[in-house]
């Protein structure tokens, strides 16, 4: 599994590097979360039938982590490598932020932070009204939780007993200009979500087994569930881990050597990915 995860990060990096665009660090922190959902199938989906009526739905509210989700959707068969390699190139539907309706497996257009949980609330509410069993997953960034709308949605979901709604917060503790603690004085989300009436689970967001257990355990209460996944922004490449400067940048020639060594990328693969332009 470690090799698979490393390969996924390698693919994420090469896809972003091929067009000189990417929120690499934000994508790296959610790889295990997506692996647990898609590869270990804690999410109910059929990649050959993206619009299957009774599928669970995942909304990537932190849309800038798109490359991780695109790579996972490719990995589990929603589309092929050519489709993935079109990322951010003219004619492609794969942009830096996910957009419906032309990407198989993408459930909502996101990018502006603070929208995904409300979209998920509406979906979960519709399923409740129709007495359906599907679950709605919303993957949020912890910096994103500074948006006021998140808390409107949190209040409403608890009041409506949306226990078919599962929010996963990618708690990498870093936003663009620094740590969440330094920017907003927040070092824990647990008490906040609990105070708003949610069931809270905390987990190591890079431990797939632990994530599997949390997803399998599910939620037997009548309240919505939030999984606070403690992660490392930039996980997988030592020089970018926990460093806010890497929110939106790619490596220079010297730094590239570290990426190549730690992700197992050859010179040929670097050359080839730039040729796929």
């Amino acid at each position, binding site marked *: 599994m470690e090799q698979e995860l490393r390969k996924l990060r390698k693919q994420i990096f090469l896809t972003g590097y091929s067009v000189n665009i990417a929120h690499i660090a934000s994508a790296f922190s959610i790889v295990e979360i997506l692996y647990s959902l898609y590869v270990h199938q804690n999410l109910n989906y059929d990649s050959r039938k993206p619009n299957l009526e009774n599928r669970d739905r995942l909304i990537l509210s932190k849309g800038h982590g798109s490359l991780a989700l695109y790579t996972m959707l490719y990995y589990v068969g929603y589309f092929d490598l050519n489709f993935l390699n079109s990322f951010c190139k003219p004619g492609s539907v794969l942009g830096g932020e996910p957009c*419906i309706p032309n990407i198989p497996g993408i459930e*909502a257009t996101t990018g502006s932070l603070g*929208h995904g949980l*409300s979209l998920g*609330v*509406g*979906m979960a509410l519709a399923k409740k*009204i129709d007495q359906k069993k599907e679950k709605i997953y919303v993957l949020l960034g912890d910096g994103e939780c500074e948006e006021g709308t998140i808390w409107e*949605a949190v209040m409403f979901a608890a009041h409506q007993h949306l226990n078919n709604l599962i929010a996963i917060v990618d708690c990498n503790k870093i936003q663009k200009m620094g740590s969440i603690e330094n920017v907003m004085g927040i070092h824990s989300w647990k008490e906040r979500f609990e105070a708003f009436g949610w069931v809270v689970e905390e987990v190591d967001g890079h431990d797939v087994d632990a994530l599997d257990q949390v997803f399998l355990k599910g939620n037997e209460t009548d309240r919505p569930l939030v999984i606070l996944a403690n992660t490392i922004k930039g996980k997988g490449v030592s020089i970018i881990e926990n460093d806010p400067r890497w929110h939106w940048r790619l490596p220079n020639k010297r730094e590239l050597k570290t990426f190549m060594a730690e992700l197992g990328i050859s010179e040929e693969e670097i050359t080839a990915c730039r040729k796929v332009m």
Partner: protein
Amino acid sequence: MQKSYVNSLYKLLKSDKNVISCLSDSGTDYDEMIAREFPDQVINFGISENNKIGAAAGLASCGKTPFVYTTSAFLAYRSYEFIRNDVCLQNQNVKLVGMGCGLSWSTLGSTHHTTEDIAALKAIPNLTILSPCSPKELECCVNAAYQIKGPVYIRMGMSNEIEIYDGEASFELGKNNIIKTGNRAAVFVTGSIISEVLEAIHKLKEEGIEIEVVNVSTIKPFDQQSVIAECKKNHVIFSVEEHNKIGGVGSSIADIIAENNLSTKLIKIGLEDCFATGYGTHKQLLEMNGLDAKHIYEIIKNKLVN
């Protein structure tokens, strides 16, 4: 108009279980009665408009037809980005119903006036904008919105709007309709301010000046042919709206005149790029801000006589 809206929505709720009334603590006694009959179809989101708009888009993506109802100022301004990104960009089947448009919240001041919503919302792709002039026409708009599979904004008043139709409203989606015929000029008007226009036109008629009144019930897409037809018949046309002169229906007409190389002069009557001031009844506020029948009469007469 509120009563007309609730009555229209009631029929839809009864006939289609996928219609959902989404409120922001914005309902009336009628809504509470309806909620008792359709508990799964009437949802109060509390005082949180942005979450409501996002959730409405989520509801629509799962096959529901949400009618989102609240004070139009809070809808159009506070929730603008949610309307843009969640509803219109994703082309979701959400109906946005803004109550209290123009100056109809006449005692609460500018925070509650909706006098820039047309300018703000008509620039968003995929959004149909309807602006009924009377309670009967509102019912037509609600039914038309339900038939459209996509985002719709209905710009409505509050209460005590004058019914201008004796029989059924002559509403046709995407078409302006001529309420009064005349040969000296034409007035394009949108919303319930049409009753002020009709009063002004009546006075002009008594003086032998006959003006055509064109009711703009669909603001977007705009009925271009109706503008072209009136421009071919008249040297001057007027627009009247409870809205800033910038970006409203008058501006849409100006675009059509310019894009079709028409030479007709356009006089826009609306707020002069200002926030409306004063407190009182709706009619008093129209008077204070130069949008009542008397002012409209004077502007039209001055332009035609001089």
